[in-house]
């Protein structure tokens, strides 16, 4: 007997109005119920999750590779047509880091690292003030400093670094034009102080967020053991908060390193000034800026990756972000992941690529009226419904029921 194919909408309408009661016999053979049941929309749980996993591994790195190749091709083209002079770049490269310690690259790095560390040491305390200076359980000492610290943080985060730099510069140069401490002149000091003041403001907020993200329940549990407020902070909140802020702090370091180019405007001899000099003195501006771009890249990109890697190595289960740990090879070639989702293979771990089961891994293809499936081998012809197939296997493709004619009898 042939049952006409119906869309889900039609079916539900028919049920609602009772029209179909006569036409639809109440008992139908499993093989014949296909049309109506399979036309109900299948939730895309498996499909979308699997797709997300696949995007996260191989194709994403492939795309990154393509982007880099395109960039290299563009630079190569520029070199070919004569806009970029390779010989010039190769010849002038060492002048960025020679002579040692007074060269622009080292100046840039020194300014960044020094101000970052100054910021780190200071911002912890400002973060504490920001986190514990207000609210019902505020700390009395933190409360005293809360207003000035909050004002400072808002001032730093609310104004451009460029403006802050000029303010610091003029303040210092008016107060002490002949400044010379530790062998650094007034420009270097102004740059260092401006960068430090700036990063303190940002890092304070990072720390505040980290401290506040530590579970209140744990704080309460520590109090219930008899720990005093400061003890709770040093033994619970601080060690956990520090782990939570590693990634935001790395971001801040990278941002700071890039912002350090701005101190070139008060004639600190760092990478940007160097590139500009190269360009204007020898008439090769593009080369100069390409060269410093590469310096920033080869420091920032490995730094971020290293921190991610280290974070994965020292991770405490259940604490912090759940990323990282893949080697570079795994990144580029995709991850062959032991999949333990038992329902896919009846409990046996399946070797899958990008999280998808493949035909041959104990799976077989099958099709029902409108859908094509990948199901555990041996279940191709069982009387499972769509839901069971969805749980045990994977939906490969579905045709909209309305586009289908009546199934062949």
């Amino acid at each position, binding site marked *: 007997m042939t049952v006409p194919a119906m869309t889900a909408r039609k079916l539900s309408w028919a049920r609602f109005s009772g029209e179909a009661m006569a036409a639809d016999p109440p008992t139908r053979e499993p093989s014949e119920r296909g049309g109506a049941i399979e036309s109900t929309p299948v939730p895309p749980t498996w499909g979308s999750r699997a797709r997300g996993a696949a995007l996260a591994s191989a194709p994403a790195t492939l795309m990154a590779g393509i982007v880099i190749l395109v960039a290299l091709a563009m630079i190569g083209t520029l070199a070919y047509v004569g806009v970029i002079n390779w010989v010039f770049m190769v010849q002038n490269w060492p002048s960025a880091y020679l002579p040692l310690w007074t060269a622009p690259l080292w100046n840039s790095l020194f300014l960044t690292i020094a101000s970052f560390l100054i910021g780190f040491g200071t911002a912890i305390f400002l973060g504490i003030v920001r986190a514990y200076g207000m609210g019902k359980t505020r700390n009395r000492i933190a409360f005293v400093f809360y207003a000035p610290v909050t004002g400072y943080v808002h001032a730093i985060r609310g104004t451009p670094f460029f403006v802050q730099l000029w303010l610091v510069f003029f303040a210092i140069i008016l107060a002490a034009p002949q400044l010379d401490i530790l062998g650094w002149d007034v420009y270097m000091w102004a740059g260092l102080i401006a960068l430090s003041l700036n990063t303190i403001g940002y890092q304070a907020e990072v720390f505040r967020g980290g401290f506040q993200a530590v*579970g209140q329940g744990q704080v309460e549990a520590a*109090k*219930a*053991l*008899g*720990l005093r407020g400061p003890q709770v902070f040093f*033994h619970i909140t601080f060690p*956990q908060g520090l782990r939570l802020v590693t990634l935001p702090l790395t971001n801040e370091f990278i941002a700071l390193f890039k912002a350090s180019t701005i101190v070139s405007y008060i004639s600190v001899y760092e990478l940007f000034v160097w590139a500009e000099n190269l360009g204007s003195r020898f008439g090769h501006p593009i080369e100069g800026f390409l060269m410093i771009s590469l310096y920033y890249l080869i420091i920032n990109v490995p730094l971020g990756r290293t921190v991610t890697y280290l974070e994965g190595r020292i991770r*405490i289960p259940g604490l912090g972000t759940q990323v990282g740990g893949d080697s570079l090879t795994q990144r580029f070639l995709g991850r062959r992941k032991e999949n333990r989702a038992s329902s896919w293979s009846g409990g046996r771990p399946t070797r899958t690529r990008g999280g998808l089961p493949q035909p041959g891994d104990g799976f077989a293809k099958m099709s029902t009226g409108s859908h094509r499936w990948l199901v555990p081998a041996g279940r191709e012809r069982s009387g499972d419904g769509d839901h069971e197939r969805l749980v045990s296997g994977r939906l490969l493709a579905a045709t909209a029921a309305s586009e289908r004619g009546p199934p062949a009898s």
Partner: protein
Amino acid sequence: MTMLRLQGIHKSFGKLHVLRGVDLEVNRGDVLCIIGPSGSGKSTLLRCTNLLVYPDRGDIFLEQVRVTTRAVRPEWVRQQIGMVFQQFNLFTHLTALRNVMLGLVVVKRMNPADARSKAELELQRVGLADKKDAYPAQLSGGQQQRVAIARALAMDPRVMLFDEPTSALDPEFIHEVLDVMGRLAKEGMTMVVVTHEMNFAREVADSIIFFDQGQIVERGSPEEIFDRPGHDRTKAFVGKILR
């Protein structure tokens, strides 16, 4: 002998009057179970008892010592009273052993070697000696709660407070936590337990309090509360729960 006495405890959060004059006595070695609908202030009552929440009015006595005075530091009180939370609240960054050791080293100023052996003993008591190096995230809910109990016991508290210790657990882990608590009760620990586990309350409790709308509605032995509740509200609640 009275171990813990609460007298006319009042607590409000803003306009919400959570505790409306609670009087309560627990004798040494007794197990008191507090039952009642959610939102009735049971948890707040426990948190008032160890001064995590400071009561607005009323007094708390721990072995005849009035602890609701300026002269007594709340940290000292909390050290005497162990507490177990619904959400376990283990310290995520510390292993099970270190979780138990923390209070000993930081609060009791025990030297780390002694603290370690005491912590190992406490973990053994809750049957988790082999899990001492696991982080909380690597433990099941039941195991986490047992570590939390060991952590509280390590401080040698005079009273233990349990705030719905099994409510956040999967059914299969509930019994292991209740077993530990039952054993603790047998060993003579003074316990105040807020719970929805009526079988546990019936078997282990010396007396049961039905708590509703910030007040003690009725107090009695398990048989009195469950089989012959005297108050209508108790009747309704027990009827709903035991059905």
